[in-house]
Structure formats: C-alpha cells, structure tokens
C-alpha cells in the first residue's frame, strides 16, 4: 500500500509550475472573458436603450408641442430658463430638455431650456448638433406642424444621454464586480477539491520505493488514472524484477569471487604456518588453481559487462549457429575427455540467424562450461541445434549428469545450490538481447538436464 497524504514532494531542480494555479488562471481567464463580453454587450445595450429612450422622449415632447397653439415671435436672445422645482425629487433619470419653436419664416417663437439657439432650417427628424461657443453636443428632434407654419425642435444635451447609458451599463456590470472575486474563490476551492485525487496520486507516486514490493494503491479508482496507475505498477514490477536480478547476480558474483579468494588466503596462511613439503606443494598448486578460478570469474564478469552494453541492432549480422557450435564443441572436447565424458553435436550443416556472433559464442560456451563444471565425471554432454516448424531456431545443451549421480548413489540436488549461476545469467542476457527465451526444459532421453535457447521467428528479428 503506498503512503497517502497530501504532502508535497521534495523540490528538486528548477521550480515547476503548479497545475492548480495553471487551471485556476485558465478558468478565471475564461470566466473574465465571458464576463467581459457580457459587460460590453451590457454597455452597448445600455447605450442603445438610452438612445431609444431619449429619442422617444424628444419625439414625444415635439409631437405634444406641435399640437399646442403658436405664440408671438421672440427675440433670439429671449430664451426662457427652466423654472426650478425644488420639490421635485432629483433622480438619475431627470433630464433637462430644451425647446425651440420657429414660424415658417424662421422667427423664434419659443426658446426654453439651457440649449443655445440652433440655426433654423427646414429639416425634420433627429440630429446631432454642436451648439454654443464650446460646441457642446446636443441631440435634437425637429418637427413641423401639419400646415407647415410652425417648427418645433426639442433638444437634450448628449452628455445626459451618455450618462444614462453609462448608468444602465453600470447597473448591469455592478453585480459582476463583486461576484467575480467570489466566483474565483469558489472556483479555486472547487479546483483544489476536484484535483485532490491527483494530489493523492502524486503523493503516492512520490512515496514509492522502487526497491520495495509496494504498488500504487487501488484507491486511485478514477477511470482517468487507470492507465497511469497500471503503467506505473508495471514499471515498478519491472524495476523490482531488475533489482532482484541484479541483487542475485551480485550475490552470485560475490560468492564466485570470494570462494577462490578465501581459498587462496587460507592456503597462503597455511604456507606461512609451515607445512610439510608435500602439503606445501599441494597448497601452492591449489593457490594457482584458485587464482585461475578467480580469473575465470573476472572473465565472466567482463563478458557480462560486454553483453549488457552491446546493442544488437548495431551488430546484428547473419551468424551460422551450427558453425559456432562446432567450434565450441571442438574447444571443449579435450576437457570432456579428461573427465571421462564426451561432447557431441546434433546440428544441421548450417543454421543461419541474425544476431551477435561473439555473444552467441559466449552463451554457448557458458552452457557447455556449466555442464562440464556441475556434473560428475563421465557425463555425456550434447549440444543440439535445430529449427522449429515456424522456422525459429533453437539451441540446447543437455547432459546425463543426474543419472550418473543417481547411479552412484548420490541423492539430493546435483548442482550446487549457491554456485555458478553467473554463466546462466550471461546466457540469459544474451538471450534477452536476441529476443530469445532461455531456461531449463525437459531433457530428451537419455539426458537428464537440458538448458535451451529459443530464438524468435526470423521475421520478428528482421522487424525488431
């Protein structure tokens, strides 16, 4: 079970961006954009509505005045000011309207309000005027009466209309101004809460120890995490398998190196203690043997290092497995004969596969050496090579050592429990590099032990 909690992983390297912050900024950005659009539309609507409202107002007043009876002409400067009505409640929509009436000759009949007197013309309808020495903007509506004897113009300062538009837009914007921070806060909290499974997963991943057997907990049951959790667990399993393999290999290497070194140290110490001439010669001979043993292990280690580093795709070439096997068998024939045994080869004239010639030779040598080393005297060893029906090549090294041991009355495990699996580790790595499978298989009669390499189909090799 992986550790839980929301503890942040230790900071390593340059500071990384926060996903929460990233999401929050994007969400708020999107929200602000939408809200901004609403505000803009609100302002436009406010202005439009204010225009319609004031224009309608101007038209209504003009229509009303055209139906009233005319009056005598007044001087251009005799504008009647708007009477102050202090009892009238002042509110946002209170507007000051100016009115000008002309007769058909253009003489001013009425001029009320604060608007400067506009120039007379015969045009009717709405117009934007700039009046007075400061050229202030006014909105106007002009209308003739039915007999065309009198023209009425109603004016409203554009500033008042704009204020109304802004007021309407402001009324629409205002809720957003206090709502937006609240929404941002709520959004932040929701994001944090919503991302909690991600934080938990992150904390669990950070707490994982690849060296232990722990896995990511099944509590990460979110469908979005399924593939991530499965992938991480698969990687962990591979990592742990690799660690176990490396640990086992280290143990085996340690054992294989320490044993001859211990023996050398003991023989040397015994020599220092004084020995009879015969015992002395034996001790010296044993030191030589153990030094060679240690050297052999070192060679194996170097081979393993080479096998680990070599890249098959760099060196893949056609290799005649049968020719390689013939050469290896020939090299070990003398050693087998000295043990009272024999090595034979069962192989076609040629069996070519794509691979690494040196590594395949190394693997085969290790299999034969293991068979020689871990079997009793007189053991028969057979190197067999063939092709499956699918065309995939295989290679196996079999021996009848267990049968000989049984015949000699030995029981129990024939091969050392804690001994040279280093050779098999090398074979395994070579097999992995070639995409082949390696392991013990049922030995064909009369053999008792058999280790086999099954190579992939040639098409798979070519593809891979």
């Amino acid at each position, binding site marked *: 079970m992986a550790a839980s909690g929301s503890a942040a992983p230790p900071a390593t390297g340059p500071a990384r961006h926060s996903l929460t912050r990233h999401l929050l900024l994007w969400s708020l950005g999107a929200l602000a954009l939408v809200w901004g659009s609403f505000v803009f539309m609100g302002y436009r609507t406010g202005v439009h509505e204010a225009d319609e409202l004031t224009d309608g107002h101007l038209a209504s007043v003009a229509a009303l005045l055209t139906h009233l009876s005319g009056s005598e002409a007044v001087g251009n400067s005799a504008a009647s000011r708007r009477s102050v009505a202090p009892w009238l409640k002042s509110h946002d929509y209170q507007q000051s309207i100016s009115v000008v009436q002309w007769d058909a000759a253009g003489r001013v009949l009425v001029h009320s309000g604060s608007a400067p007197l506009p120039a007379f013309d015969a045009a009717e309808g709405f117009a934007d005027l700039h009046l007075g020495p400061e050229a202030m903007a006014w909105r106007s509506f002009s209308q003739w009466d039915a007999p065309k004897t009198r023209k009425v113009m109603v004016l409203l300062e554009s500033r008042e209309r704009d204020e109304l538009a802004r007021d309407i837009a402001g009324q629409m914007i205002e809720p957003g101004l206090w709502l937006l921070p609240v929404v941002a806060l709520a959004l932040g909290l929701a994001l944090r809460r919503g991302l909690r499974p991600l934080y938990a997963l992150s904390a669990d991943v950070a707490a994982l120890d690849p060296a232990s057997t722990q896995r990511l907990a099944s509590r990460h049951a979110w469908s979005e995490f399924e593939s991530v959790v499965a992938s991480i667990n698969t990687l962990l399993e591979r990592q742990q398998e690799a660690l176990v393999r490396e640990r086992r290999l280290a*143990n085996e290497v*340690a*054992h294989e190196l*320490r*044993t*001859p*070194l*211990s*023996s*050398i*140290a*003991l*023989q040397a*110490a*015994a020599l220092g*203690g*004084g*020995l009879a001439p015969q*015992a002395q010669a*034996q*001790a010296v001979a*044993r030191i030589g*043997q*153990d030094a060679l043993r240690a050297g052999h292990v070192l060679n194996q280690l170097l081979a393993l290092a080479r096998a680990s580093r070599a890249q098959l795709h760099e060196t893949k070439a056609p290799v005649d497995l049968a020719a390689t096997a013939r050469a290896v068998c020939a090299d070990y024939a003398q050693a087998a004969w000295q043990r009272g045994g024999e090595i034979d080869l069962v192989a076609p004239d040629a069996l070519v596969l794509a691979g690494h010639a040196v590594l395949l030779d190394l693997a085969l040598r290790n299999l034969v050496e293991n068979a020689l080393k871990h079997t009793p005297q007189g053991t028969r060893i057979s190197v067999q090579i063939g092709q499956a029906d699918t065309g995939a090549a295989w290679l196996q090294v079999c021996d009848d050592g267990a049968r000989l041991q049984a015949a000699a009355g030995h*029981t*129990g*495990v024939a091969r*050392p*429990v*804690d*001994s040279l699996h280093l050779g098999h580790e090398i074979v395994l790595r070579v097999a992995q590099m070639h995409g082949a499978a390696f392991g013990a298989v049922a030995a064909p009669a009369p053999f008792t032990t058999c280790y086999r390499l099954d190579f992939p189909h040639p098409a798979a090799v070519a593809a891979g």
Partner: protein
Amino acid sequence: MRILVVEDDVGIAEGLRTNLQQRGYVVDVCDGVASAWSALRAEPFDAVLLDLGLADGEGSELLQRLRTSPSTAALAAGTPALPDPATPVLIVTARDQVSQRIAGLDQGADDYLAKPFDVDELDARLRALLRRAAGRASPTIRYGDIEVDPAARTVVQDGQPVEMSPREFSVLLVLLQARGRVLSRQQIEERLYSWQSAIESNAVEVHIHHLRRKLGSGCIQTMRGVGYFMPQEPV
C-alpha cells in the same frame, strides 16, 4: 578443541583444516548437509564452522536441525545423546548482506564471518565462541596457580612458563573446560583426534602422565574404571 568444518569447496575446506590444525584444533571436514548431520550425531564437536551454500542444500537447514534437535531432553534424562543443540556455530560464507547476516544469526548461529576472512580473526572468533560456550568472560583460564591462555596456547604455573606439546595442551584444555566432570578416555580422544588421525592405544594415558609430571600429580584425578577429571577447585 574439535571443530567440524562444513564446506563444499575443497580449497577452502582444506585451507581451514590446515590452518586450524596449525593452531592446535582438531578438525573434521564435511562437504554437505547430510554428511555433517551424520557427523554431529556421531561425535561431539566443540564448534561448527558452517558454510551456507552447500552441494546438497542450505547450511541454514543444518543449523535449524541442530538447534531443534531433542538432545537437551535426552541429556536431562542422563542419557548422553548427540547432536548437542548448544554446539557453537560460526557461519562462514560468501553471503555478506546485512539481511543475510541477520537471518543467519536469527536462525541460531553464534557468529557470522564473511569470506574472504583473515585466519587470525577466524581463530579469535572461534576462541570467543568457545569461551562463551564454557561460560567464561576472560580470555585466559585460571586454575589455582595454573594460568592457561588458549589463544597463545601457553601455560604458566606460579609465574613460570610450562613447556608442553600441542596434544598435552589440548588434553589439559579439555579437562579444564570440563572441570568437575569425569571424562572417559574415549571422550578425551574424541576431542583430540579427527577421523583421519591414528589413535595410539595408550595415548591419553601418556599425555595425562606428562601433564601430572609438569603441573603436579594432584591437578588431574583418576576415577578408576571411569576416566579422568580436574576437581572444580584445585587440590
């Protein structure tokens, strides 16, 4: 002191045998669990040097069998029986990881030594094991005016060194460690000779005679028809 070496590597086994013999131990070698178990059931050993990876199994199996053997009950009933579950065991192995050391000690080993090792260190650890098994804290054994140093294999009486052969020293050590208890001639021989040694018919008597001559006739007592002993307190 008789040591059983359980080791499947011939070079190490023979090296241990030679070195320990040079240091005055009696050494027998077994190369597997089965043969070692047979040896432990047949003969008393003062300590066992045990390798873990053996040809026919794990050394830890042998250790567990030794520690759980029922001989303690048999001894309580007065019946001499083997193997002795209290036999000190020193694991000598190439497995040096901490977890492996802990496992070995938890399984009942008295000490753990990783290969390769210094023979002097092995000897020191063996002496410490034997000392602990005998219930002593001091590296030397005092008996009246006699002081025996198992490490240096020296004997001093009244401040004067006493010359003695390795075999005489071994007999003295065996009797001192079993003081107050009568040991038969066979029991003494078992501790003095390995399977490969030829035992002379009156060898023990000769060694006892020499020891009495060198240390005084009263230090080793004879129980006629039974054997020899050194009294708990010196005469």
